[in-house]
């Protein structure tokens, strides 16, 4: 009985195109007054760690990744549109520059909420120039976020490689001697969202996409990148070895205190080399998993007696 009434309800809903904007899609509505109130209040001025999370729409993610990929080995950049929601920044859309010139506000109510650029092959972090650019942005265009995407690592790892960062205002930091810019900014926690229609479309896209997931061979696609990583690793190990040699000399002469700086540096190098090696081999193993699965499925056929 209840299933029949459900069917009837669904039919009625469909026939009348009843608009049931679920709370999932509420995020797509831009409330101008609420945004202006936020902009006037500026709660982020008092707390440099005000924004803790960032939500990125499925479309913005796809656009950023596709744009970054189209650049090949060149860095590309673009602008992000979105809004603010309590302690969370929300990115609704992304535009490649210079399309975002003058005219695009015609159909878009949202404001610029940040910028993104790509680091093809060298990871998601902010370089020195990036940090100064972002600090400038945060002075004049608050609220603003910097997103970095790495299309090469995305493809090699089979996972999206993206980071969202905000810098601390200058007065809070002393730039350390090791040139570590990483203390000048912090990473926001990234999560993604999609609309109800997105979900349905993505599900039906999957109906056609599973073929390419099964047939993709990441070992071949990433061969160049992997070779690069291995030779990179060998260089790092050589450097680590050299500095260890130096540390041993210094250590034997002076004792523990003298060797500490060299030791720490060489240890950092060795630690980093170990980490990179593990990461590369994990990705290679994943690719191998896929290959083995394909081999078992399609090559090893046991014919059953009729």
């Amino acid at each position, binding site marked *: 009985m209840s299933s029949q009434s459900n069917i009837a309800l669904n039919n009625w809903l469909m026939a009348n*195109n009843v*608009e049931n904007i679920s709370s*999932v899609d*509420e995020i*797509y*509505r831009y409330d101008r007054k609420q945004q202006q109130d936020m902009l006037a209040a500026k709660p982020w001025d008092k707390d440099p760690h005000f924004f803790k999370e960032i939500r990125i*729409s499925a479309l913005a*993610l*796809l656009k950023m*990744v*596709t744009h970054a*990929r189209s650049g090949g080995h060149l860095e590309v950049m673009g602008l992000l549109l979105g809004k603010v929601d309590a302690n969370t920044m929300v990115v609704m859309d992304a535009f490649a*520059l210079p*399309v975002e010139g003058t005219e*695009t506000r*015609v*159909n878009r*109510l949202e404001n610029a909420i940040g910028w993104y650029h790509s680091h093809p092959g060298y990871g998601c972090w902010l370089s020195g120039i990036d940090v100064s650019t972002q600090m400038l942005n945060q002075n004049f265009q608050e609220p603003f976020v910097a997103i970095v995407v790495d299309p090469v690592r*995305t*493809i090699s790892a*089979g*996972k999206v490689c993206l980071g969202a960062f905000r810098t601390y205002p200058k007065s809070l930091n002393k730039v350390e001697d090791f040139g570590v810019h990483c203390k000048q900014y912090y990473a926001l926690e990234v999560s*993604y*969202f*999609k609309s109800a*229609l*997105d979900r349905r*479309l*993505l599900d*039906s896209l*999957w*109906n056609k*996409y*599973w073929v*390419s*997931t*099964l047939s*993709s061979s990441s070992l071949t696609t990433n061969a160049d990148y*992997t070779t690069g990583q*291995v030779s990179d690793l060998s260089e790092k190990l050589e450097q680590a070895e050299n500095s260890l040699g130096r540390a041993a000399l210094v250590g*034997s002469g002076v004792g*523990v205190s003298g060797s500490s700086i060299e030791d720490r540096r060489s*240890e950092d190098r*060795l630690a980093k*080399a*170990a980490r990179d*090696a*593990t990461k590369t*081999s*994990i990705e*290679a*193993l994943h690719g*191998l*998993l*896929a*290959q083995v*699965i394909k081999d078992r*499925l*399609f*090559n090893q056929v046991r014919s059953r007696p009729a």
Partner: protein
Amino acid sequence: METEENNQNVNHVMASSGATGSISVLLHPLVVMNISEHWTRVRAQEGKAQQVIGALIGKQKGRSLEIMNSFELVFTVIENVVIDRDYYNTKEEQFKQVFSDMDFLGWYTTGDSPNESDIHVHKQICEINESPVILKLNPFTRNADLPVTMYESVIDLVNGEATMLFVELTYTLATEEAERIGVDHVARMASGDSAESSQVAEQLQAQHNAVKMLANRVRLILEYIRAMERGEVPKSHEVLREAKSLTHRLPVLNSEIFQEEYYTQYNDVLLQTYLASITKACHDLHQFVTKFNVLCDRQGIMGRRMRGLFF
């Protein structure tokens, strides 16, 4: 006679089903997501669903089109839909700067099957580009198929006068690696959950999903053939032929050359893993030695005892 006329009235924008499309279309999922977001945003802002219209851009090589991106178009509704040409011209200049090798290929809209107003819009678009394609996305469909259909226009003789009709086109989805990973990622994560699982689990989950789909499809074919055997469905020789050719293709690659390459690749990966584990072991050992040194040093005289223990 009457019903025929009625049918004609309802469907007089579609050419007869015998006509097949003349071009092959490759569609990027990004375009589908673009349209979906456009529609959702307008709906959330206005409070109810409205028809949205936009332009499609991409590359064209002879008879094959690749639709890679899209943008919105502004239109006004004065009786019929009128496209704002100025807005289009500005947008065209802009996208030429970023996507310099992409051309205007067609337009998209939301809705069910094509109708009169679509023909009207199409005629306006034809002023921009000679033979645009149309993409219709139906946001209200309930079945699992992708609710995207593509059409092109032909001029046909209907009742003695030349009218524009739509012909459905078949399209395939483009599978660029980065796009696929992005789509995979947003498809699989539920809104608002944090993926704590291990990397291996994620990878295997993706593979498992794909293999599950394959198994479902194969099972479907098997059921169909069994039903044909029992006589429940009419025999279709074409389907049988295709199924036979499919099974004949297994095993796909069993030559010696393949085995050699396969095992070489396997060994390469194992070598890499070996390298990584040695590096890690070196690092761990180094750390151990350093820590041990620090410990020992507390007991004895600086330097000498430490050296003595490890020489």
